[in-house]
């Protein structure tokens, strides 16, 4: 991992902790801010991917995967923007859905890394499992037991957990294969 990536991961981790604190202090405004930032970043990523496809990746073997990624990200961004105006419960369920999805992606990537003998797959796999389990547990608590406050605090804890994992990852030694 390059210094820039380490700094980026550290920064994202710290921002996640700040969000968690905002949610605890002012839950009603905090959720809108978190959802709005998520929406904007997804939209930016989607535009970047589509621009990359039309200027570069359309010439590449397998380049269509880039345009699919861009469209899915754009779709998620639009969905996120529509959810912002709805009630707090929907926002938090949506955020939990995104959280569970990123956990599932982490698990899949960890399994892929294991298949290729790449080191450090265990941490990624465990963090993915924890993210999915937490999201599932909080959703059940919120939907079936009406424990919305518990849901908010649970989400904050899970946010802090993933932030800590990211910060730990930023300081870990990594091995890179390069060809001379």
């Amino acid at each position, binding site marked *: *991992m*390059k*210094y*820039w990536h380490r700094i980026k991961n550290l920064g994202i981790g710290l921002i996640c902790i700040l969000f968690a604190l905002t949610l605890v202090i002012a839950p009603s405004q905090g959720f809108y801010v978190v959802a709005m930032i998520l929406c904007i970043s997804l939209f930016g990523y989607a535009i970047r991917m589509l621009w*990359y496809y039309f*200027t*570069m*990746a359309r*010439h*590449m*073997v*397998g*380049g269509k995967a*880039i345009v699919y*990624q861009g469209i899915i990200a754009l779709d998620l961004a639009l969905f996120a923007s529509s959810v912002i105006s709805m009630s707090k419960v929907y926002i938090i369920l949506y955020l939990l859905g995104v959280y569970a999805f990123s956990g599932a992606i982490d698990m899949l990537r960890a399994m892929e*890394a294991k298949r*290729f*003998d*790449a*080191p450090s797959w265990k941490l990624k796999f465990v963090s993915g499992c924890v993210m999915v389990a937490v999201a599932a547990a909080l959703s059940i608590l919120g939907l079936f037991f009406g424990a919305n406050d518990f849901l908010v605090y649970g989400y904050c804890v899970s946010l802090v957990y993933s932030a800590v994992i990211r910060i730990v990852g930023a300081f870990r030694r*990594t*091995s*890179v*294969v*390069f*060809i*001379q």
Partner: protein
Amino acid sequence: MNADFHYYATYCAAQLAGYSHAESLDIAYSACFVDFCSKTLLSKIKAPLSAATTQLQLELMDARTDAAGLQDITRIWSSFHFLPYNLQARPKRRCSKKYRNKFRLICNPNSALLEETVRLAKGKSLQAAGIAMHVLADTWAHRYFAGTPSLVINNTNAYFYELLPEGEKKITFRHSASAPDDPANSVYTCSLHYNSENSIMNLGHGRAGHLPDYCFARYKYLPAWGGYEEVVKDNPSDYRHAFCQMIEAMKFLRGERETFARDTYDTQAVASRAQWLEKILHKRQLDASADWKAFGESVSGKEIAAFDLDIYQDEYKNAPKERKDSTFLGRFILAALAQKSMVTGHIFRSGSLLAGYPIDSAEGSRGKNRVFGRILNGAKGGGEA
């Protein structure tokens, strides 16, 4: 290519071109040293960092991929390891300038830049000849890849088959840096797939692993830039061409040939040992040093000392400032700067800033590059034989 070819095979080619044992060793050492002359090593011996001819694993991990960082990477890898074939090339389909500039950096043998590389070494030091031989050899091994990080050019996909006498075998790629390649089972290590255009994972032939560096390897795959057209890479044939072209080039450098023309190979020089050569080139082994060493010793009748990275470092470090350029590494540094400047200049003049500004441009004469300019002026005079 690995040290087996850059050191021992270059020695053999130099011998067959008519150089003495000592001269051949100097050329071979310089050719091999290109893969070791990193900024880390240069800072250790207090030499100009702009003379780096390679980047080590840790350096690449820390390398920035912003515009300036990419220029630094491209200058090094395009100048010494992936010499661009055609800087005026146009892709078949209409494309953006950004794509076209990267497409133009794809390496292939027998380019106009290769001719210029060999001519640049003419009348210069043995170190310059060694650098030119490294560049020449790599144009064969690293063909179809570009010396700049690029997903759209250097990426490969799952369609990758080794061509064996008994038939095709799908290659399994893994990303374990510590596990050695396993040619018996067609299992090789490659860089991780990273969906970012300028990721260091997409530099050169990283996505194809070390396959281009093994003389025995024959394989087919779909290069990212190739529009789904299959490419067959026949390393034994390419390495044979590289070897015979090195002999031809070094005969030109020695003055035995008046010109160095593209697509010319001295096959006569190896005619009496052709079978031996073929045996080395087809043997499935990760390191062919022992075989090349035996081949070289049969040509010269003298023992070839093993490559020792440290052997010339003290000489350079301890030399007074005014005598540094006449040391072994001093001459290597001057030759490396001349080569880097020549390639960077051509890339710049093709309308691309991917390798940065050459010293003779208005931008290049500003700031830090002034240091490079002073050294380069030394290269023009001090690097001569």
